[in-house]
């Protein structure tokens, strides 16, 4: 098997606060293979974005990585110095943000921003960098790039701006692109275009993608594999078809049941009772057990690990032999 582009092992992200240390990401592990698109889904506050920022090493203090390792092509990057990490950002890992309205500096022409990014990581001359910027704009489907390159961000529509942001993320040919809800701020009609573009570009450039979203439709259409996050942990991870068509974890089932469907004639969508726990009060054992319709003996006490011999791995005692209750020590 080839080395995965990104390999995250037992990652923990902590936020020390007055009331003790909050664990926003707890023992998260996953791999992204070359050219693969990994979707990361979950409710707000499940730790999707924090996982992305932890990978790129930009967790805002006082937050910190409390344990685990991050490997980029087999090379450990979570313990690199600021300066070494800075050289990796943009060059080997690109990032696309949610809001294209604010992710471009309003005071610079888009060409200037592209050229700045290109020249940060290459030694191209001004004119060569400009040609490269033009090529990138053409590639992301900006019409008349020769004139648009000298426009300011406010002269672009939201969808066009997100195209420019994609061009920026791809400017230095990164191996991995982290897209943090790239379509959430866009019109529905534009979302599909941007997602298709993201997918096509990453395939052409051979970049792996970590696609963070809460839109299952986007995941179904784009991702190869999907990781479902709940309360800072991965509940289930597996090929997108398996997870969507045959979810294992009760939480994933609940998520799927809450999506309206065109086929079938169910009147009501199922809903998961309760809401996601606060980070200050993550339940013991399986974090989902207070809301789980199939909670049973081991769930409140023992924390399930991600396991599974099949393509999908799931962290749920329903699928693993569980420890006998006698061992339960409160």
């Amino acid at each position, binding site marked *: 098997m080839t080395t995965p582009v990104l390999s995250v092992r037992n990652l923990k992200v902590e936020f020390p606060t007055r009331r003790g240390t909050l664990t926003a990401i707890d023992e998260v592990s996953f791999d992204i293979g070359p050219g693969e698109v990994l979707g990361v889904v979950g409710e707000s506050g499940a730790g999707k974005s924090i996982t992305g920022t932890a990978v*790129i090493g930009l967790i805002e203090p006082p937050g910190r990585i409390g344990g685990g390792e991050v490997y980029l092509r087999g090379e450990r990057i979570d313990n690199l110095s600021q300066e070494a990490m800075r050289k990796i950002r943009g060059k080997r890992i690109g990032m696309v943000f949610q809001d294209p309205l604010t992710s471009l500096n309003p005071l610079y022409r888009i060409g200037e921003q592209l*050229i700045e990014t290109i020249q940060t990581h290459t030694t191209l001359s001004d004119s060569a960098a*400009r040609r490269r910027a033009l090529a990138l704009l053409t590639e992301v489907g900006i019409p008349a790039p020769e004139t648009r390159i000298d426009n300011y961000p406010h002269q672009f529509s939201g969808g066009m701006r997100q195209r420019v942001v994609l061009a920026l993320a791809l400017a230095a040919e990164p191996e991995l692109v982290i897209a943090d809800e790239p379509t959430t701020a866009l019109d529905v009609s534009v979302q599909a275009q941007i997602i298709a573009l993201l997918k096509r570009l990453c395939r052409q450039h051979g970049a792996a993608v970590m696609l963070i979203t809460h839109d299952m439709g986007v995941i179904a259409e784009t991702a190869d594999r999907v990781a479902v996050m709940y309360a800072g942990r991965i509940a289930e991870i597996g090929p997108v078809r398996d997870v969507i068509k045959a979810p294992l974890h009760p939480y994933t089932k609940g998520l799927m049941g809450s999506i309206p469907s065109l086929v079938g004639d169910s009147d009501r969508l199922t809903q998961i009772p309760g809401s996601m726990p606060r980070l200050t009060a993550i339940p013991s054992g399986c974090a989902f057990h207070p809301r789980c319709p199939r909670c049973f003996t081991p769930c409140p006490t023992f924390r399930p690990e991600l396991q599974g011999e099949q393509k999908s791995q799931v962290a749920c005692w329903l699928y693993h032999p569980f420890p006998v209750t006698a061992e339960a020590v409160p």
Partner: protein
Amino acid sequence: MRAPTARQEGLGARLWRAWDSDIAWSFRHSPVAIAAALVVTILLLGAAFASLIAPQNAFDAASLNLMDGFTRPGEASATGRVFLLGSDDQGRDVFSAILYGSRVSLLVGFASVIFSIAIGVTLGLISGYLGGRTDAVIMRVADIQLSFPAILIALLVFGVARGLIAPQYHENAAIGVLIVAIGLSNWAAYARTVRGSTLVEKNKDYVMSARVMGRPAFAIMGQHVLPNVIGPVLVIATINLALAIIAESTLSFLGVGVPPTQPSLGTLIRVGQQFLFSGEWWILFYPALDLVLLALSINLLGDWLRDALNPKLR
């Protein structure tokens, strides 16, 4: 930004764009701003071309005639010369003295504002962007500084500098010391403003993007944050310019400013106030009027700029 990508535009197109901009429109529709700008321009030109306009080199003792002393404005002196704004006790033309004096005042005013912007904006950017302990140290220093009256700090700096500089250089260094003293007493306002706007800007995605692109922190501060926080600085700078000129005059009035050989408006006022109650009012009145007009016009311009740059008032 490093790369020269700006499209080549004809001069005409650029001028038209400047004329057509919101700020120019706002200027054209504000009679107060136009009047203030006119006054400032006249005073600036007068100071800049003092040697061409002034009928007398006011500070060349050889051109003074004691017989001309205390001539009333517009009247002929004992030697038959007419002084537009009168003459002082040594027969110096008050009009010429004002032109030369405002030159010193404006020089000190502009230079000290630039000096305090350089310090304040840099510290404010660093403070806001880096945060944490750096921020705490810089802002506490600013707080301490702001708990003293600016003029007291300027006096302190001035005193310390006089102690450090050898006496034979005092005359030459006086203007430089004055600039540093006034500049150092005003940086905190810039630092606070810039820090505040930086805190807002640094959480915007474009700063995050630049970090994600792997740009170094100082490049992000200078290229991305600075241009977005400079607007309010311009407004404070304009208003502080008036304050700096007044501070200079106050220091000179107190006798700790520029040496008497290079009098500023403040020095002229100090000299003039000795004669106010003996009837020679013009020696005090005209330099003071010039100072008031200058400070008022600059303040009015600052107010207009503040409103013009405020998107909520458009």
